[in-house]
């Protein structure tokens, strides 16, 4: 089994009200140094055998992320 990680975050031009709410809470807690928060999703996939990069890219870009509004990063295990 190998472990593949996929990170999904809203595109920079799409406003992220959840991230802004977190930023507001940080300000109230005195963490003034934090300038911006973007909230996203983190998927951990256990894949049988050697991961097929093309297949995983397709999974990431067609189901795990919606390319209309989200950017996706695929992290394959280093060998």
């Amino acid at each position, binding site marked *: 089994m190998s472990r593949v990680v996929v990170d999904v975050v809203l595109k920079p031009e799409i*406003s992220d009200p*959840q991230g802004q709410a977190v930023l507001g809470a940080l300000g109230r807690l005195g963490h003034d140094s934090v300038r911006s928060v973007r909230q996203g999703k983190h998927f951990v996939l256990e894949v049988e055998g050697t991961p097929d990069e093309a297949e995983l890219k397709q999974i990431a870009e067609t189901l795990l992320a919606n390319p*209309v509004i989200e950017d996706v990063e695929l992290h394959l295990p280093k060998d």
Partner: protein
Amino acid sequence: MRIGVITFPGSLDDVDAARAVRLAGGEPVALWHADHDLKDVDAVVLPGGFSYGDYLRAGAIAARSPLMADVVAAAGDGMPVLGICNGFQVLCEAGLLPGALTRNSHLHFRNRDQVLVVERADTAWTQDYRPGQRIVIPVKNGEGRYVAADADLDRLEGEGRVVFRYAGGNPNGSSRDIAGVTSENGRVVGLMPHPEHAIEDLTGPSTDGLGFFTSVLKAVVAA
């Protein structure tokens, strides 16, 4: 006229949608998401609700259900398809409509009677309205903010693909007050507000929603 109403796990408004079809004079046909069977319907409604609990993204998992492959194929042949609320989210996720629906800008679930302006009265689902007509139907969503890249919004506006716009206040922060859009051929329509909840004086703020379901009966006859 047989109008299908799809039930996904977590659909809520399928019964109301079927009732709206019946009151408009159509025959509602219950469709199940896991079947590859459109049961010879003439048009399809994707109702509101929280399919798959909005897991992953609202509508994302329902858009990959077996029946949706048949809906996409039938839409390609011109069959009228209406997506209401979660149904609109499913149609965007399935690629039948452009753009996406995201978390309301104010982060609150918004539930109220909403004024809409009808911008396109020539789609399969809106021909019983007049261009510029103002209608009042309920809106209720937490992830109803319509978004797309600016260039895509410009293109949609240029092609006249915006069917409804919010008036009297935007309930969710949707780009350019967009409440509903249509496909290039005007046969597929999606909107966040709920016409099926505005079909009888007893239970709705108006009967303005009935026009969706009478429109499609004419569209099917004309096809």
